[in-house]
Every structure is written in C-alpha cells, then in structure tokens.
C-alpha cells in the first residue's frame, strides 16, 4: 500500500517538474507577461523597500495641504491634511497588497474545497455544493460585503473575510470541472485500487494535477480583491486607522476639483498593480495551457 503510494507520488512529481521547466521557458517567451512581471517586482520594491529610503511618516502633517506634485520637494505632492502622498502610497500599498493576497487566499481555500469535494464525490454532494455556489453567485457581491463590514465593524480582518467570502464561486467552478476530468484518469484509478483514502486522493493525487487553472484563477483573484478593497474604502467602509490606496482615494475624494492628483495617483497605482497581475496571469495561462496557445 505505502509502496504504491510512493510510486504514485513519484509519477505526479515527475509530471510536475518537467512541466515546470517547460512552463518557465514558455512564460519568459511571452513579452507581455515578462513586462507584467517586471512591473510587479518594481511595485513590490517601491512598496516594501521604499519606506527605508523615504522615511516620512504617512500620517504626519508635513506641509500645506494640496501641494502640487514636484513642488516644495514633494515628489507626489500632499493630500487634504498636508500629508506626504509618496509615503501614503508606500504604506497604503503594503496594506492593499496584503489584503489582496489574504482575501484571495480565503476565496481560493473556500473555492478549492467546495469544488474539490463536488467534483470528486459527484452525485448528491455535487448537486448540493453547486447549488450552494449558485446561491453565492446570486448575492450582489459588493452590497453583501458592504453589509458584512458594516455589521461586524471595519477592520482589516472583516474586510479581508468579506471580500473572500463573496468571491470564491469562480474558483469553485474551475476546480470542480478539473476534478470531474481528472478523477477519470488512469493514475487516479491506480491509486484507488491501492485502496488510498478519499482525502489522500483528493489532496495528494488529484489536486496537484488540477493546479494549473486554479493558479491562474487565484492570480486573477488577487487583482480583483485589490479592486474590491479599493471600492470598499472608497465608499468609506474600511478601517480608518489603516492607510490603503483605496483609503487615500476615498479621503481625498471631496476635493477632486481642487486637487485631482491626490485621487488620480493612488488610482493609477491600483491600475498598474492589477494590470501587472493580469499580464502575469495571462502569461501563466498561456504557459500552463500550451494547447490554447497554439490555437
């Protein structure tokens, strides 16, 4: 039994490594994807390494409000409270990216579990789980997460959970269809004949082979979670003590006609980040599905 399992593990590992090398080559041949990756690394460096070079406190009033960019030594100007926007972009970026990642993690966890069990067991389990998924597709996502945040208080945790809980349905659908396909494969039958348990089959045999489309979906999820967080903060439903890109936009919004840059700059940062993520996602998709690429 254990011997069979090790063999199966070997088989799946071999598949994973050989396709990994192929995938990397494919990915780096795609100029748009490489550009996206470079952009993403630049943004990460700016957000996480930037504060060491530019040490101004993002919450401190440092100059007159609405100083134009490139004036008085403020590269991106100051906001309605005279705070340095460059510092706010770095601090806010950390929060926006962290919430994006965490919320995507929540939605991928829920989505993969629902999709995996539905696809693996089929029958009544599948019917019930897919009805459950459909139910979440009917709920107007933003309204529902606004209600969750308003009811349970705006904190990083509630915002992250509220985004994750409403956006897992696409992951569940992708996972289910992959499981439906893979569970009929011979190596799964082989593992089953070695009397492997269900959970082992689901998470150790099928899931690793179902990962490519899930990875692509998860990647897009990070981008849409960042947009989601920005929309919530723009509407005033975020932790007021934590700075995020959406928060900068929301708090400067009443003054757009006097100082459009205070709103345009963080919006542009979100745009660039999500753009970079989706370029990388397209590249991953092409690299992971060579058949689609040839078409």
């Amino acid at each position, binding site marked *: 039994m254990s011997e069979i399992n090790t063999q199966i593990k070997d088989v799946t590992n071999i598949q994973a490594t050989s396709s990994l090398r192929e995938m990397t080559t494919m990915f780096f041949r795609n100029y748009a994807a490489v550009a996206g990756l470079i952009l993403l690394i630049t943004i990460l460096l700016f957000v996480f390494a930037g504060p060491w070079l530019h040490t101004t406190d993002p919450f401190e009033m440092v100059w007159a409000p609405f100083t134009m960019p490139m004036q008085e030594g403020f590269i991106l100007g100051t906001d309605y409270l005279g705070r340095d926007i460059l510092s706010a972009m770095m601090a806010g970026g950390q929060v926006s990216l962290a919430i994006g990642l965490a919320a995507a993690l929540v939605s991928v966890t829920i989505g993969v579990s629902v999709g995996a069990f539905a696809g693996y067991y089929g029958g009544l389990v599948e019917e019930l789980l897919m009805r459950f998924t*459909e*139910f979440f*597709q*009917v*709920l*107007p*996502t*933003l*309204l*529902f997460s*606004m*209600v*969750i945040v*308003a*009811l*349970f*208080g705006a904190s990083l945790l509630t915002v992250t959970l509220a985004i994750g809980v409403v956006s897992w349905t696409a992951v569940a659908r992708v996972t289910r269809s992959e499981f439906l396909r893979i569970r009929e494969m011979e190596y799964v039958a082989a593992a089953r004949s070695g009397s492997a348990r269900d959970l082992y089959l689901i998470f150790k045999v099928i899931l690793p082979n179902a990962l490519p489309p899930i990875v692509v979906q998860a990647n897009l999820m990070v*981008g849409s979670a960042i*947009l989601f967080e*920005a*929309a919530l903060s*723009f*509407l*005033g*439903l975020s932790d007021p003590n934590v700075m995020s890109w*959406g928060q900068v*936009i929301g708090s400067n*919004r009443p003054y*757009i*006609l006097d100082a*459009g840059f205070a*709103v*345009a700059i963080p*919006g*542009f940062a*979100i*745009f*660039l980040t*999500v*753009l970079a993520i*989706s*370029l990388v996602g397209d590249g991953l998709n092409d690299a992971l599905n060579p058949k689609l690429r040839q078409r």
Partner: protein
Amino acid sequence: MSLGKILAKRIGYGLILLIAVVVLNFTLITIAPGDVADSIAGDMGGADAEVLAEIRSRYGLDRPFAVQLGRYISSIAALDLGYSYFYNAPVTELILQRLPATLLLVFSSQILAIAVGLLLGVMAARKPNSFTNLIVTFLSLFGFAAPVFWTGILLIILFVAIWPVFPVGGMMSASLIDAPWYEQWINIAYHLVLPMVTLASIYLALYSRLTRASMQEVLGSDYVRTARAKGLAENKVFYKHALKNSLGPLVTVAGLQFSAVISGAVVVEAVFSWPGLGTLALQSILARDTPTIMGILFLSSLVVIVVNILTDMILRMIDPRIRAD
C-alpha cells in the same frame, strides 16, 4: 421538456434561492453585535435597560429567532419589506422610488457595452492585425485593471475642468421640476451620459474580447469553411453564419455578470451622486438602518434571479441545441 415547463421549474428554483437569501440576511443581522433597539436608544441619547426591553418588545425583537424569521418571510410574501426607522417611511416605498434610476443606469450601460463591444469584437476578428484589434487588446486590459470609481473621477475632472459639456452629478436639474415631461427626459438623458459610460467601460472591455474570441473560434469551424466553399459572399458568411453563432457566449456572460453589474452600479452611483438603490444602500448601511438594507439585498437578489432566468430562456430560444435537452 417544453419551454414552459423549464420556465416553471426555473421560477420554482428561483423562489427557493430567494428564501435562502432572506434567511441568510436575517441570520447575519441577528448574530451581528447591536440591534435596532440599540440604534434607536443611541439616537435618543441613551436609554436604560427597561426602555430597551420595551423597544424590543414593541418591534418583536424579544421573540425567538424562528418566530421573527417566520414573521419576516410572511411579510415579504405580502410585499411588505418593513418600516425604515431612519427615513420614517415604508421600505417598499423607499426602494420603489429609487429602483427606476438604478435600472435605467444598469440597462443603458449594458446595452451600450454590448453594442460597442460587439462592434469592436467583430471588427477585430475580421482583421486580426488591424488597429481595431490592438484597441480591443488594450481596452480589455484597461477595463479589468482600472478601478471603476477612478474612471468615473477622471471623467469628472475631464468634464468639469477641461470640457464642461455634460453634468457630473445628480439625475435631473432641480429647476425642471415643473417642466413638461419631454424636457425632463432630455435632461435625465444628459445626466445619464457620464455614469453610463463609466459603468459600461468595465463590460465593454469584457464583451469586445469575448466577441473576438468566439468569432475567431466560429470562423475556424467546418460549416464556415463549407459556406465559403460553396461560394457564399464573405459578408454573408460573416454576419449570417458566424456572428449569429458567436452570440451564445455573449448572452451567457452578460447574464452571469449581472450581479457584478449591480455592484458596479453602487460605486458609480456614489461617484456621480445618482439617486438610485446604490446610494440608498450606502446611506442606510452607514446609518445602520437594518430593514432598508435587508430590503435592498432582497430586491437586488430578486433582480439577479429574474435576469438569470431570462438569460436562460433567451439562450434556449436562440440555440436549438440547448432547447433539445
């Protein structure tokens, strides 16, 4: 199964979904910290335990959960969504006042996005190396990555500071309150332009990319080759054979996207102070006006369910292959 039977089945299933939505909302609001009595007491400037208990018994909040839920569901069945303590008006009336504005915004932006998206997608599929194809590629990247409120704010800046031709807020000029209806309608259309374009921008990208992809797929299929081989004019092949068959995915996605469109409308309404359901939702959420929030969640889920059923029916009507099962 006949179309009528399928429709009946879908409606029955939609009702079950709707009840599930109501149960979920009600449960959430019950387990959340604080209730209506607390917020009323807060408005009164504080109250002691006795007054709180009296408020709770007056609104039936001291009853067991199941009883409260049952009462709520039966009142919804009678089209009564409760009473808003914040606006001092029945919720049904409040929502019906705001619904037309939201529906106008949502449907006009969807029609715009589908029309322009189809046009661009078809042009791009026709000439794969053209400028239009490049535009579709850029649009689809921009549409996904740009936050919708940011697009709206950029439009406001553009149309206030640089080219002031369209109004950037509200739905109708206050001076027209006694004007004849056609003048009012023209004014509303004028106010609609920017919110509509903003909301359409997201979906325009999606639809143009989708149309391009499905057109390219259909153009490579056997029956298109047959049509060309028998000497049919290229225009006829393109519009009569290919376009008709690539509409299916567009209709499916447009239907599935509808709950996201409502979410987008909430943000766009906030940007342009458009007096619709989204604005009402935001105000009532900030004021913790529970009956109104629940009413809006209920109604928007109802709209999504109805649109999903309609999409399904349209798909079955345009595609005989789906109708068969």
